[in-house]
């Protein structure tokens, strides 16, 4: 039975092949379709291997050595797990990890809350909603370097617009506080800028989620006498949840390796109050030149993010399947 099926399939395939006037394979000097496929994907694979996979493997190798990039000719010694042991017992690194977690938590919380609220408002489809969507998206389109430099000016105690507005609203003199220079405010100054820049991104994803909910579900709920509050909690939130979770995943991964904004705004200071993991990593690698240990740290970070993201994606799939 199965055999006869395959012969029919083969026959029709053969028929299709012969009925195509000039097959692609024949034109390219007798190469099989499979060979042509390889021909097309080889450059991509080679590039990926060269700039992603090879450095990763090389970093793994270096993480077991005492290699220092500023002394490339020194004798390479295998130190086993010593680098990993040092990283995991280094109290500075643990503080940096806590700082990172703090950033990730607050940026995700604020961006999700504000982003979803904005999406919910924009989804009301009022006059000019397309225009306002574009306006809201502008921060996201700017280069992080530009954003960082501009916010340095905005946070300037004497001439900064941010300090001026805060003083206008609260009455506190503008030069009495320094967003970037004070130990208690500096972490928040970075959280504010990141939220300003990336909330639109979260909004966009949430908006896609809200737009995917068909109108008739709301109409059915309306006829079923569900209040606006109940519609929100029993239709809007559950149906938009996979999208919200996706936004959280993207922002979480992105902010775990937050580097540019911190580097431009505070450089990790004052002291080490805003020194997130990626800044510590950079210092280890390019200021202390302990390349081996920095590699070990990078691998640990990679495994942590990869593991967390995997657990999260499993949860996301579960929500989606409902």
């Amino acid at each position, binding site marked *: 039975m199965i055999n006869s099926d395959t012969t029919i399939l083969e026959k029709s395939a053969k028929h299709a092949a012969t009925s195509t006037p000039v097959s692609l394979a024949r034109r390219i000097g007798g190469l099989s379709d499979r060979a042509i496929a390889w021909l097309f994907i080889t450059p991509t694979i080679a590039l990926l291997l060269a700039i992603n996979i090879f450095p990763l493997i090389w970093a793994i190798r270096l993480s077991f050595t005492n290699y220092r990039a500023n002394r490339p000719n020194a004798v390479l010694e295998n130190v086993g797990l010593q680098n990993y042991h040092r990283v995991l017992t280094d109290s500075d690194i643990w503080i940096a990890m806590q700082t990172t977690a703090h950033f990730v938590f607050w940026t995700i919380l604020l961006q999700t809350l504000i982003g979803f609220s904005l999406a919910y408002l924009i989804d009301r489809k009022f006059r000019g909603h397309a225009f306002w969507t574009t306006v809201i998206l502008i921060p996201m389109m700017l280069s992080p370097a530009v954003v960082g430099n501009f916010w340095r000016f905005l946070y300037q105690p004497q001439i900064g617009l941010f300090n001026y507005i805060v003083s206008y609203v609260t009455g506190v003199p503008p030069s009495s506080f320094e967003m970037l220079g004070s130990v208690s405010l500096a972490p928040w100054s970075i959280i504010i800028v990141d939220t300003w820049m990336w909330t639109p991104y979260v909004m966009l994803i949430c908006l896609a989620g809200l737009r995917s909910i068909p109108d008739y579900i709301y109409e059915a709920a309306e*006829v079923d006498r569900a209040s606006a509050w109940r519609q929100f909690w029993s239709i809007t939130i559950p149906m938009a949840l996979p999208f919200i979770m996706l936004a959280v995943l993207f922002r979480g991964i992105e902010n775990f390796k937050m580097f540019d904004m911190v580097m431009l705004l505070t450089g990790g200071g004052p002291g080490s109050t805003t020194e997130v993991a990626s800044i510590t990593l950079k210092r280890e690698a390019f200021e202390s030149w302990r390349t081996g240990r920095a590699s070990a740290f990078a691998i640990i970070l990679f495994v942590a993010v990869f593991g967390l993201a995997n657990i999260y994606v499993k949860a996301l799939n579960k929500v989606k399947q409902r």
Partner: protein
Amino acid sequence: MAEVTLAGISKTFGQTGAVDNVSLTIRDGEFVVLLGPTGAGKTTTLRLIAGLEAPDAGRITIAGRDVAGAAPATRDVAFVFQQYSLYPHLTVYENLAFPLRSPARRLHDAEIDARVREVAKMVRIDHKLQNRSTRLSGGEMQRVAIGRALVRKPAIYLMDEPLSSLDAKLRAELRLELKRIQNELGATLLYVTHDQVEAMTMADRIGILAEGKLVQIGSPREIYSNPANLHVAARLGQPHINLLPQGLLPGCNAPAGTKTIGARTEHLEISASTPGNAEIDWIEHLGDQNHLHIKVGEHKLVTLADPYLAIQRGDRIDLKLRNPLYFDAGGQRLT
């Protein structure tokens, strides 16, 4: 259950008129079917009654109360949408219980539970109460959607082509069930469809809609045998009614002004005869019956025939009319 009346209802969307001066009374406990092609204004009429759209003109009363400006929630209607409008993240049980959990109703959990189970049994979905609503087949989803309307005892049930997305077998089954349930509950029901079989089998009265106007309303028998005009006549009957010029076939007693004669199967008498006035052009064998395609001069007719009728393609026959329908030049029926 209650009486629902529409008086001179009109609604336009931009330049297009959807419903044009429709007046209709749905009596308490009555099953009314609105029948019409796509774009005739059937769905809009339902949405106007439910309060999902506001009429441009006219009055709607539900149980004697003018509902102008009232929100859908306060109108005491239940709506079954054409799409399976289930709450996808909830179980079948929770979907059915959803309308009962409205704070406006204040029902006890035990009461809700009893009602949900009763209705689930009624729509035959009680074996899947704990399933997610997205894990059901099309027929099951639509039964849940119907069930979600039935858990309530509203003034009127509004159903918008609830069976149109189902396959033929399931449609026939649910058609019967729906009629049975409506009888059991004594429900007032306004049902919209473009399927004449649904209309004929379920309705107490059929309203024919065309281009936003209610052309005729009456019992299925009335609509079928006494159509007000050509349009109504063309809506009902399988095969489609044959429209012939006056004088083509013998056997009629046409009143003055007759332009067109409408002849369904029961209006045609066939007898084998040579030379005869017609010829069998084609026969479609449907098993239980045959469709005869007949040529009379330039004109073609389709009629049903007994499968045992000894007749073949190319045979000459004698075709005669028996009490057909007469229409004037404007398409209005003449009697």
